[in-house]
């Protein structure tokens, strides 16, 4: 479950969009019931923080817009829907407008080096998204994409195709429907990164087979290459000094929404 937004985050986002509102006013609106209450959450480092549901942002924007028109708070309260919008706002691709330019010309599929591996070419995903944004066909395309950006250099409409696929990989499918070809390698990559601060470019050896020998402290990695060299042993990566801090930061970054 997502933790929601911090008050600071909300104000920061609003400021970026040109709205000005102070912390005090925000809390006053919460008190009035114009905005939802935040959820308490204890922090690992100690202390407590309040997290507000993501739709708070949209609601606050609506309030500020009405206020600009000269409405009083009471009138605003009457106009706003009483409760949270349901269902919660779908996660949307920030450059969704650009997708409308797609003419289904097929150039992205034609130039894609790994086209044959994809269930559907990128433009078909764009068309499906245009049809119904929430129900994408469960194609492997976003995960097969090697990120070479050739499609973007060719696209006559300069659509950010790679960014779109990246978005789909991250947000496009509900949890549980994640498509991952090599969960084991992914696990090893991240555990090495967290235990050592450095990892092993598994991406580079996705195509090859890898085995891990020994306990975590004494890891040995065996790489099987599809060539005359055969199986060869590689050393585990060295450790960095700032490991504990890195670990904590990574955990916090994972919680980002």
């Amino acid at each position, binding site marked *: 479950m997502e933790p929601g937004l911090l008050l600071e985050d909300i104000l920061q986002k609003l400021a970026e969009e040109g709205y000005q509102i102070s912390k005090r006013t925000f809390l006053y609106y919460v008190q009035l019931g114009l905005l939802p209450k935040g959820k308490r959450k204890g922090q690992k480092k100690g202390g407590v923080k309040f997290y507000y549901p993501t739709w708070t942002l949209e609601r606050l924007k609506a309030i500020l817009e009405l206020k600009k028109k000269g409405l009083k708070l009471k009138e605003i309260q009457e106009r706003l829907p009483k409760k949270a919008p349901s269902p919660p706002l779908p996660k949307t691709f920030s450059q969704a407008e650009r997708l409308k330019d797609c003419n289904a010309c097929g150039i992205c599929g034609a130039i894609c080096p*790994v086209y044959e591996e994809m269930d559907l070419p990128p433009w078909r995903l764009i068309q499906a998204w245009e049809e119904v944004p929430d129900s994408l066909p469960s194609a492997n395309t976003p995960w097969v994409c090697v990120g070479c950006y*050739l499609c973007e250099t060719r696209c006559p409409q300069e659509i950010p195709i790679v960014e779109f696929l990246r978005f789909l990989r991250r947000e496009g499918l509900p949890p549980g429907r994640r498509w991952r*070809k090599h969960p084991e390698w992914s696990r090893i990559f991240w555990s090495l990164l967290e235990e050592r601060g450095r990892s092993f470019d598994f*991406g580079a050896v996705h*195509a090859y087979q890898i085995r891990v020998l020994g306990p975590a402290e004494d890891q040995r990695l065996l790489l099987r290459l599809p060539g005359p060299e055969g199986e060869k042993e590689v050393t585990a*990566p060295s450790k960095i000094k700032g490991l504990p801090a890195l670990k904590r930061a*990574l955990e916090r970054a994972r919680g980002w929404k």
Partner: protein
Amino acid sequence: MKILYYPGCSSEHLARDLYLSIETLASSLGVELEVLSDWNCCGAREIEEAPEGVGLFLAARNLALAQGEELLVACSLCFHNLKRAQDLLRKEAGFRARIAELLKEEGLELSLKTPQILPLTEFLARLDLSKFRSAGFRGLPVAVYYGCFLSRPCPTDLEALEKALSAVGYPVVPTTLKSHCCGGHLPRTDSPVIKNLCQRLIFEAHQKGATGLAVACPVCKLNLEIYGGPSFPVRYFTQYLGLALGLSPSWLGLPEEE
């Protein structure tokens, strides 16, 4: 000359020969490589599946550690990840604020302006390599290959390899596929796709009269070696440069008979 240097994880295993040749080359060019202290992994391709913050943080920590004008990066995937994160952090104040908070714990601070992330190709191309060329060296024609991440989406100088190699005496054969894709991290072993891509790249180099292919990226090199066919030599451009400078093959991570 001294330059701050980010080796990246592949320096420790997959591409040890690349890093060996970089170190040898640097010392004979009189360049002191100052390894970025306590650098961490950039997240490779795996960050694509993690929330945006993870990749940004991994890159930002390295950028914050790099107190200097320039940061030399050899691996093109690391270059891409660091550069993309830096561009995004420069653009998005929201990301910047949250990353700054994560960095605070280690007492690190992110600078907006520095470091300039410098790919190895551009760094070597701007040195005057011709005066280091060993007397009597005659290079055989080679073709060059940049791969994706040095070409897109943050393009580097796509004449850098040509400049560096021809400065030390290699005739460089022009090719059209030097910025195409080798198949990258295509996650399948039984796919003919990657084989077709790699063989096509080798085919062009061979057809146009090159005797070898000079590459810059560890992933490309591995793919081309394994799938491109056995008979055509694929080497790091730093290894080619080293040979032209009269350095011993074994110092460049090459077999002794070269």
